[in-house]
């Protein structure tokens, strides 16, 4: 059996009309089943543009120069309509206010199912399932305009999940939220990735609270994919900027520097510490400290 990636981009290039430089330049990458990809890049680097190519919003919704090919499960989407792809790929956007339109939260979730002419009983069953999954019982009859930003994003996630697509895309879905709601949403997304095997691709600015769930990082700069792979690999790529290090990793690096690669410690101890993988998350850091105490 040959391996087919869930998502595959081949030489994807895009230039917005009225824009002199390319927003995407020859982007190539493959995402495997069950991956949790974190798309990192400064603002204006092309994250949203890249994500929009995944379900054809680019080039269908934006005029400009498009080149290359996007494949989902080995099939090119060039000939497919965005609406048709809703069954394959669920999309959640950044702004909570501008993606909901139904009368109630419940109907927002039902909306994609109605679009695909699913029978009513089936819609009812699926909607209830999602409401339970995302704990939306309390707000299911409320207007999506009368709930908090975090609840709005959960509603949008619920709606994107309705058709049970195997791929989920999140474009800075938490950046309009308070830190507590953002963390809650990320946890939910991680749960969907872990428990339901959804392939997730997510763009974010905050690394510290996300990296524990992430299997791959994609780093994009000026429309070019500069690094792609497992987190530690990408962080050590020379193209990856120090500024975008997770706070924890950067603290570790500083500690390493101050202690001259732990040279101030006994040799055996030092070796032990260097053997502990570089910490990316708080738990990693604890492991590292533990390693420092219990080694020798």
């Amino acid at each position, binding site marked *: 059996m040959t391996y087919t990636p869930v998502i595959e981009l081949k030489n994807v290039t895009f230039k917005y009309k009225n824009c002199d430089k390319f927003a995407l330049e020859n982007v190539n990458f493959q995402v495997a089943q069950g991956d949790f990809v974190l798309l990192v890049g400064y603002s204006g680097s092309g994250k949203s543009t890249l994500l929009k190519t995944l379900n054809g919003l680019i080039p269908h919704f934006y005029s400009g120069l498009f080149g290359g090919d996007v494949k989902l499960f080995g099939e090119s989407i060039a000939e497919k309509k965005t*609406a048709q792809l809703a069954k394959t790929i669920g999309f959640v956007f950044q702004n909570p*206010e501008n993606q909901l*339109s139904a009368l109630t939260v419940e109907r927002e979730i039902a909306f994609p199912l109605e679009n*695909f002419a*699913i029978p009513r009983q089936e819609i009812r069953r699926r909607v209830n399932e999602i409401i339970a999954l995302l704990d939306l019982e309390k707000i299911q009859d409320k207007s999506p305009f009368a709930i908090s930003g975090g609840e709005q994003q959960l509603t949008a996630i619920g709606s*994107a999940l309705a058709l049970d697509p195997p791929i989920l895309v999140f474009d800075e879905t938490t950046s309009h939220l308070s830190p507590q709601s953002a963390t809650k949403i990320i946890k939910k997304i991680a749960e969907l990735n872990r428990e339901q095997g959804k392939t997730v691709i997510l763009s974010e600015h905050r690394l510290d609270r996300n990296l524990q769930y992430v299997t791959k990082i994609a780093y994009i700069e000026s429309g070019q994919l500069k690094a792609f792979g497992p987190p530690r690999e990408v962080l050590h790529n020379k193209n990856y900027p120090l500024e975008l290090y997770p706070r924890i990793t950067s603290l570790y690096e500083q500690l390493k520097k101050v202690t001259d690669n732990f040279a101030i410690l006994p040799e055996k101890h030092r070796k032990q510490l260097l053997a502990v993988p570089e910490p990316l998350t708080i738990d990693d850091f604890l492991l590292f400290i533990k390693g420092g105490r219990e080694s020798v």
Partner: protein
Amino acid sequence: MSTRILEYFNYEQDKSLIHRFDPRTKMLFVIVLTCYTILFRDLVPLMLLFAGVTPLVLLAKFFKKWLRAMITVLPLVLLIIILNALLLKNVPSPTTAGLAMGFRFLILAEVFGIFFQTVSPDELSQMFIKFRFPYSLAWAISTAYRFIPTLTKETAIIVAAQKARGLQIDRGNIFKRLKNMIPLLIPIFASAFRRSWQLAEAIESRGWNAMKKRTFLYSLRLKWWDYLTLLLLFGLFALFLLQVIKQYPLPSWMLWQLPEKYELKSLAIAFWSWLKNLFQK
């Protein structure tokens, strides 16, 4: 004043008896009542109609709002009555005709008020769907309606933001003032445009019109009380048609008119001569 009137036609979420009727029932109600209001030209039947419809205002639980709106339009109604009473010719009693006109206006205001008070924009759009209008149109209506409060709020923020940047809206001559509107109008439109664009992307990504056919989690369903009311309304409509075709004469008590001496014109003349007397003395 205009906000009062707008408010009067604004849907009020409530669980009144009238709210529970299907919008199609209420639509027929509006049609039948409008027909009758136009059919009758005499004061007594119109007063009876008014007396019959007013309890529905109470049932729909918007009496207070109704009263406020009525007070707001009272000058207009009085004007209708007075102008008719003074200027109408070729009728036996212009004042009666004027009053009839006034009641006609009030009945129509009540009937349409009840409809818009108790039919939500969403029910309205579902009604359109039932009448086989395209889904996109029905969706656009109910969505536009839902975004009105957001737009109002947004406009207020835009005005505040530009004022904080030193924009003075009411300064200078008319051209200067118009020019001062640009920093407000562009963000308002750009923001509305961006909003609809993002919404379009979002619904497209969730399968908008993916199939020719679509289903609905909820759709309108007539209940027994709707059937009963519809039956009654159809009966009334049949009577209306019959009357239009056959032109049966109305019973005489329905044709009652104000006695000559209470005519507005005669009252005015009497008042005038009384005044004249007063001054001549």
